[in-house]
């Protein structure tokens, strides 16, 4: 392995979405040498697609404070969120937004010159009272505005970028300390070992697990799978969010901001359907609640058109509001449906959207694993932040607008902890050659030629299995078959071959590696879901319709070697009283 190119940095960040770039900026500004590896040019990362906005209790439009935000987040999580991390995030939120504004984010503005905020689902004043308006927005292009500004500030800070490099696996020594990662340059296929005192995973979600998804084609759960293979269990993977309003049959997202601005859902009878399911919050109930409502309407025969969707009505808002506040989704509807939402309603259906689970971390971004009797022992040198991580602030159901917040707050927190770590660890540990060999084997495995299955055929089956067996409503039988099917698919991976053996921009090779990663994430999701015999947040079992706090108020941990394990929820906040579990009504 001596001939593989090696580079050395203080800190390695895998992923150049909002999480990775926020961390990179913090590190670069602290004069650490930092390398950011991304399989796509940074501004093509999926954060760019985020629409509606980011939550922070700025109280620019309606009264607000971080403690109400915390209550809503705990309730939204269906009491599976860790309350110390949630308190930390909600307290840090206003500062995170002001920092972004100072970095240049072109937030929409109110008449008095302050940042525009809109109502989003699951938000309340005064611990469950009136609707709040907590989501800071740049029209409906907030993710674009944030990602570009962060990339721009990183240009200014002279961060090292490895653009269009694919990270293959983590490298670690026998004590389990993480020493960097093996990646390869997609342009010419050349492998490179990046040695670093700390490695931060910021690789985003795994939305490509499902056939219909709001997620970009690159969201294949690579970082989560890398962690799994490095022996880190994945946490709470059964909680996959289905966004209530994906464009039916297509999957493009219509932001919750559309309902925040006053849009509402109607069924085939023209009824405002959410009045039945959430009398108070109506269309701004939590996402799991709205998604189940739509799925139920369709199942009970009140779907529109062919009966397989409901309608999102916006035309009553008037063209002005739509053009000013929701120009992006208006364009998307015109492009993909030939429908102008200023004139006609949009057909929508719950669509795979967000991976609540992921790599377990504490609120400093350190990856934590169970060791003997301690459920959360940090893995030296390894951090995770953003959608690939599970802190867990979202628990069983994420609130809209809390993910952009999560990636920024914990990207920054992880960087701050890394800076401390770097202060205490001046030298790189020696590289572990065995670990390189293993990672190279995984890469070289794709040089096998001959007859075999194709990547695309297996991937299509995987997505179909996930959609059929692990969707909005679940039950024992459906998931038992799901487990059997996905285990069979995973075995077939060995027989997959790619014909393209070129080293120049080989996208077939990239897709093959991504399929392996997706498969690992699929296994984790299906197994965790099958085992959890209750309904909580996005995990909704017809055969176990109630939440069971006695048995199941605990986090799932799935590992490749040992299968499932569990650990308690951290119910104790940092400084305030704990919010005990209560029935969740909206």
């Amino acid at each position, binding site marked *: 392995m001596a001939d593989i190119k090696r580079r050395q940095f203080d800190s390695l960040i895998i992923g150049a979405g909002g999480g990775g770039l926020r961390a990179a900026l913090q590190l670069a500004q602290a004069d650490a040498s930092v390398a950011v590896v991304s399989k*796509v*040019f940074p*501004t*093509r*990362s*999926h954060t*760019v*697609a985020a629409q509606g906005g980011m939550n922070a209790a700025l109280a620019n439009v309606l009264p607000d404070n971080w403690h109400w935000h915390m209550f809503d987040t705990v309730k939204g999580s269906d009491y599976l969120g860790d309350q110390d991390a949630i308190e930390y995030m909600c307290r840090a939120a206003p500062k995170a*937004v*002001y920092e972004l*504004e*100072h*970095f*240049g984010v*072109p*937030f*929409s*503005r*109110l*008449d*008095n*010159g*302050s*940042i525009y905020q809109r109502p989003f689902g699951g938000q309340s004043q005064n611990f469950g009272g009136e609707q709040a308006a907590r989501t800071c927005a*740049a029209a409906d*292009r907030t993710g*674009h*505005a944030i990602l*570009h*500004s962060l990339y*721009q*500030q990183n*240009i*200014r800070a002279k961060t090292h970028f490895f653009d269009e490099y694919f990270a293959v696996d983590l490298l670690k020594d026998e004590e389990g300390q993480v020493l960097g990662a093996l990646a390869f340059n997609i*342009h010419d296929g050349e492998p490179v070992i990046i040695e670093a005192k700390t490695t931060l995973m910021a690789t985003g979600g795994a939305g490509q697990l499902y056939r219909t998804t709001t997620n*970009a*084609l*690159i969201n294949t759960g690579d970082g989560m799978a890398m962690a799994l293979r490095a022996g880190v269990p994945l946490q709470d993977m059964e909680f996959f969010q289905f966004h209530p309003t994906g464009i039916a049959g297509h999957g*493009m997202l219509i932001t919750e901001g559309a309902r925040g601005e006053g849009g509402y859902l109607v069924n085939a009878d023209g009824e405002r359907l959410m009045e039945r399911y959430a009398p108070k919050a109506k269309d701004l109930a939590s996402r799991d609640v709205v998604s189940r409502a739509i799925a139920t309407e369709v199942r009970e025969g009140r779907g529109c058109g062919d009966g397989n969707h409901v309608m999102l009505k916006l035309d009553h808002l008037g063209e002005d509001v739509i053009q000013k506040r929701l120009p*992006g989704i208006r*364009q*998307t509807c015109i*492009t*993909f449906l030939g429908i102008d939402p200023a004139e006609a309603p949009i057909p929508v259906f719950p669509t795979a959207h967000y991976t609540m689970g992921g790599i377990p971390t504490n609120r400093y971004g350190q990856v934590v694993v169970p060791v003997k009797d301690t459920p959360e022992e940090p893995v030296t040198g390894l951090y995770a932040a953003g959608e690939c991580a599970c802190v867990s602030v979202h628990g069983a159901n994420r609130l809209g607008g809390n993910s952009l917040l999560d990636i920024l707050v914990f990207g920054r927190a992880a960087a701050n902890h890394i800076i401390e770590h770097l202060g205490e660890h001046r030298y790189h540990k020696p590289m572990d050659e065995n670990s390189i060999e293993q990672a190279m084997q995984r890469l070289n495995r794709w040089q096998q030629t001959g007859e075999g299955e*194709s*990547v*695309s055929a297996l991937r*299509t089956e995987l997505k179909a299995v996930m959609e059929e067996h692990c969707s909005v409503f679940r039950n024992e039988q459906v998931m038992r078959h799901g487990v059997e099917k996905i285990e069979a698919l995973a075995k077939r991976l060995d027989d997959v071959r*790619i*014909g*393209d053996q*070129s*080293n*120049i*921009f*080989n*996208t*077939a090779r990239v897709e093959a590696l991504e399929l392996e990663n997706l498969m690992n994430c699929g296994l984790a999701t299906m197994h965790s879901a099958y085992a959890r015999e209750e309904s909580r947040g996005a995990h909704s079992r017809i055969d176990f319709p109630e939440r069971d706090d006695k048995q199941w108020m605990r986090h799932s941990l799935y590992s490749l070697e040992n299968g499932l394990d569990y650990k308690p929820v951290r119910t104790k906040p940092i400084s305030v009283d704990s919010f005990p579990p209560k029935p969740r009504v909206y």
Partner: protein
Amino acid sequence: MKFKIYRFNPDVDAKPYTQEYDVDVQPGMMLLAALLKIKDEQDETLSFRRSCGEGVCGSDGMNINGTNGLACVTPVAELKQPVEINPLPGIPVIRDLIVDMEQFYQNYRDVKPYLIVNDPMPEVELPQTPEQRERLDGLYECILCACCSTQCPSFWWNPDKFMGPAALLQASRFIEDSRDQATAERLADLEGPFKLFRCHTIMNCVEVCPKGLNPTKAIGNIKKRMVARTL
């Protein structure tokens, strides 16, 4: 539907060639979906970039029947057959439809595309009125797809000297931002016969921008500000 696609892999091909594909297209299908179908079902070696599939990430700029555009928001139904697909023109090809964007990015970085504020930052947001904020509409939405710059003759001839429409649009985005405090330097940086003034207002860039942005107008605004400054 028939597609004629530019192919070139320097690993194996002595020179570029055109390959024909036949694809079953469905109503409402976008060009990206047709390309993915070719890659999945006919030819895994066909190479192109893609990510979001909805026109926001800027990955899949290519030349479609002679005009630059994003494959993911181009309905195949509107295209004349056979659909001729080429890489973005005027910049080096890495493989098939994948081009080397380095010069394009370099020009972007050269206009200092970041907010510069020299005063101490307040504890809260820098104020900006809705009217001031509106001046950024039509500028900040750029997705760096390079459709405009690679359709600009001035950029083809002098990619290392003329900034090109995309980078100039970014320059304008910061010049117009009421919060930015480096306007004078930004304008000074663009002086000389090439960086800005090579634009001959041919408007190719405006015609192809998939986000409906208007780099020509932005360039005009910069020119106006320069004139105002020297008066």
